Every structure is written in structure tokens, then in C-alpha cells.
């Protein structure tokens, strides 16, 4: 089934791990060509929500609808649903998901093959060019700096042209130039209609980047902000208000 992620709608999503409630009745909607920020302290539930959006976890209750008339992912969804959806989702976790013994080119060619892309060599070459790492293409990833690994990892998750991009703390360990490169890439994807959901603590780095920000605490959604400015002060005042 061809999916068209013209929007992603999260409706009353909850997730429990045993008796612990990681997420509680979260609802929001992402529009095409937008960047949504997931903000919140450690343990707020941001990574759990990203895992549900990536179909790696099923919600305990509630639904995620991919596209206005698209597939609904919920507690009863099977692997077949996930398989159809995963073809349109890219998820970059904090740990990057690269084989350090393989070269950058081998990593990209392997994942291009797994994603069923034709002519994996050309696809990998293009991705290396986007990452500006053509000169280091045949070096093992183990010899790369954190920033270089991050660039390769981002191209790995973009290799199949996903319509929904999920990023978990993508700025960790990056220098200023790498941050600027990543932001430029995200803005480029936004113009192409990609929906990006980005969880981060680095509020200064994402100032002005988000079309929408969702603030989560203890698994609950406590604030939604449209095109937020002065993110740090908004975040601190909201957390302070909620703590009272």
C-alpha cells in the first residue's frame, strides 16, 4: 500500500511499562514540511514517543495515524502495518546505528540494500556527497569523529527518502559547524515536505527552528507552542509553573 504522510496525527497515546506510565494521553498533529520539537526533562517520555512513532513500540492505548486517510497504528497493529509504514520513516537514535568496523560507504550500501534501493553504489555515493565525506568514504567509521559519524548516520536514515524523520538528541557532541550543517539539512528537508519530529535538550541550538514545540513532563503533555521564540525562557517558565 502506498502511503502519503500528508500529516501525522497522535491521538490520546499512552504507553505503560508494567505499572509505570511512560506516556499519558498525548495528542498532537504534525503537518507536512514542518519541524516539531519534543521538549522535556530526562525521563519525560520523549524517546518512548519517538519509538512509537517509528513503530518500534505499540501504544498501550490511543492511535497514531500516518496520513489523513492513511494507516492507523495502535495497540492491535501487527508487523505488516509496521512494515508498510517503516518504508516512509527515518529514525536517528542517540546511538547512531552504524557498524564501526565497516567503512562509511559499506554502511550506506548495506542500509540501501536493506531498504530495497536499486543501484546501492550510486545511492551511497549521493549520500556520501550530502554528508560531505566523499574523501573519507572508504575509511572505517571507527576512525571518524562524533560529528562525522552523525553526518553519516543522518544520511543513513535519509537514504530511502522518508516522509517522516524522527531525531533523538541529534545535536549531542557536535561542534558549531556540524550543528549548522545539520540545521541547514533539516531546513532543506522541510522545504521538500518532510515531517521532522526532533527531541532535544539543546534549546539554544534549535532557537527559531521549530514550527511547533510540544513540552512533555512525566509522560504528560503540558504545553504546545506554535513557532516558539525564546525557547529557553518559555521552557523554564512552563516547567516552573508546572512544578508549583
Amino acid at each position: 500500500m502506498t502511503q502519503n504522510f500528508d500529516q501525522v496525527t497522535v491521538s490520546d497515546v499512552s504507553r505503560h511499562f508494567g505499572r509505570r506510565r511512560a506516556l499519558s494521553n498525548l495528542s498532537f498533529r504534525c503537518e507536512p514540511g514542518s519541524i516539531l520539537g519534543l521538549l522535556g526533562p530526562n525521563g519525560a517520555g520523549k524517546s518512548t514517543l519517538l519509538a512509537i512513532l517509528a513503530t518500534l513500540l505499540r501504544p498501550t492505548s490511543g492511535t497514531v495515524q500516518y496520513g489523513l486517510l492513511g494507516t492507523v497504528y495502535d495497540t492491535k497493529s501487527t508487523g505488516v502495518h509496521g512494515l508498510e509504514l517503516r518504508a516512509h520513516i527515518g529514525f536517528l537514535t542517540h546511538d547512531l546505528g552504524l557498524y564501526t568496523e565497516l567503512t562509511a560507504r559499506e554502511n550506506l550500501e548495506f542500509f540501501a540494500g536493506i531498504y530495497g534501493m536499486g543501484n546501492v553504489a550510486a545511492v551511497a555515493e549521493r549520500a556520501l556527497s550530502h554528508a560531505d565525506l566523499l574523501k573519507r568514504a572508504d575509511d572505517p567509521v571507527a576512525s571518524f569523529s562524533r560529528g562525522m559519524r552523525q553526518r553519516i548516520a543522518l544520511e543513513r536514515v535519509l537514504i530511502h527518502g522518508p516522509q517522516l524523520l524522527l531525531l533523538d538528541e541529534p545535536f549531542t557532541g557536535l561542534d558549531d559547524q556540524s550543528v549548522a550543517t545539520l540545521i541547514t539539512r533539516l531546513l532543506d528537508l522541510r522545504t521538500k515536505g518532510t515531517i521532522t519530529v526532533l527531541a532535544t535538550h539543546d534549546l539554544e541550538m534549535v532557537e527559531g527552528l521549530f514550527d511547533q514545540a510540544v513540552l512533555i513532563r512525566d509522560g504528560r503533555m503540558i504545553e504546545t507552542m506554535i513557532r516558539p521564540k525564546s525557547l529557553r525562557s518559555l521552557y523554564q517558565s512552563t516547567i516552573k509553573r508546572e512544578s508549583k
Partner: protein
Amino acid sequence: MRSFFRVVWLVLRKDMTVEVRSFEIVSTTLFFAVSVVLFFAFALVKEGQPPGDAAAGILWIAIAFAGTLALGRTFEREGKSETLRALLLAPCDRPAIYVAKLLGMIGLLMAAELILVPLVALFFQAQLLDHPLWLGALLLSGTLGYAAVGTLFAAMLARARSRDVLLPILLYPITIPVIIAGVRGTATLLDPAGEMVMVRFWTMLLIAFDAVFVVLALWTFETLMTD
């Protein structure tokens, strides 16, 4: 179906490339397997005389222990930088990932057995190579059953903090039939008075175990890896 086998081949080839470069799992597994046999030989062989029925048991203990070590290391590598998660995110049949890991594990254990069989035959004066086809059938079916259960559990535990402790606790009770059938089948082969009908019986038991657990693993892998 073509895409299923394409993914199996890609994951298997990737694992072999990584292993050729690191030589980590092959070296530790073979070293451990040989060490087990040597320790038993030092402990049990007195003045060049091995105990009567020890060879079959020692061969299968070495295979089981070395297999547990290899299973843990294989998935520790995938869990280290969340590459298992990256694989699970791909729009491919997840059981193909399981099959690739299973084939890799069988290949590794068969390589260990190629060293272990002559070593056990030498130290314990066992006529292991008198019936090479039956021994091969017992080892292949036993290895498949052990690896089928082990690969499933190791994948499930890949992100668990106490996986090194939990893997043997889960694996050994379920694979007891494999060890019993393997040991009894091999012991019958080594017994000059042993009847081939019993070797056939133990081999068939192993094949039945393989069929049940391979089907069960393929059926449950997708669900187990989702939640």
C-alpha cells in the same frame, strides 16, 4: 520471497565482513571451546586412560558453552551502537534478520565442531569418525536446534542490562532435549554394542525439535522485537 532472501544474504554478508575485520567472536568462541575440552582432558584422563563414556558429554558441553558465548557476543555487537534497532526499522521482513543471524551462528558452531571433534577423539580415544554421516547428522540437527532457540533469546535480550546472566538461564532449560539427544546419540555411536536404530531415534528427535523451534521463532520474532 526474493526480498526475504536478499535481506538474509545482506545481513549474513555484513556479519561476515565485520567478523573478518574484528576476528572477535570466532577467536573467543574457538579458544573457549578448545579450552573446555583441554580442561576436561586434564581433569579426567589419568595415565593416558580416559573414562569410559565421557567423550560424548564433553563434546556437547563444549558446543553448548561455546555457543552461549558466541550468541551473547553476536547480539552485544548489534546492541552496542543500536544497529539492531536500525535493522528493525528497515521495511523488511524481520524474520529475515533472525534467519541471517541463525545461519551465521550455525556456521560458527560448525566451524568450532570441526576443531572439537578431532580434539575430543584424540584426547578421549573416542572413535568419533567411525560413522561420519551419522555424527554429522547429529551435530547439524543439534546445532540447529540449539542455535534456533539461542538466537531468538539473544535477540530478545540484546538491550537487557543483565543479558549475560539471563541468556543461559533461559536457554539451558529449553535446550535440555537437544543436549540429551545429542549426548545419547553420540554415546550410542561410540558404543561398539550400540544399535543404529537408537542413533536414528535421537536424530529424528533433534529434527522434530528443530522443526518446532524454528517455526516458533519465525512466528514470534516480529512480535517479540516490536515490544
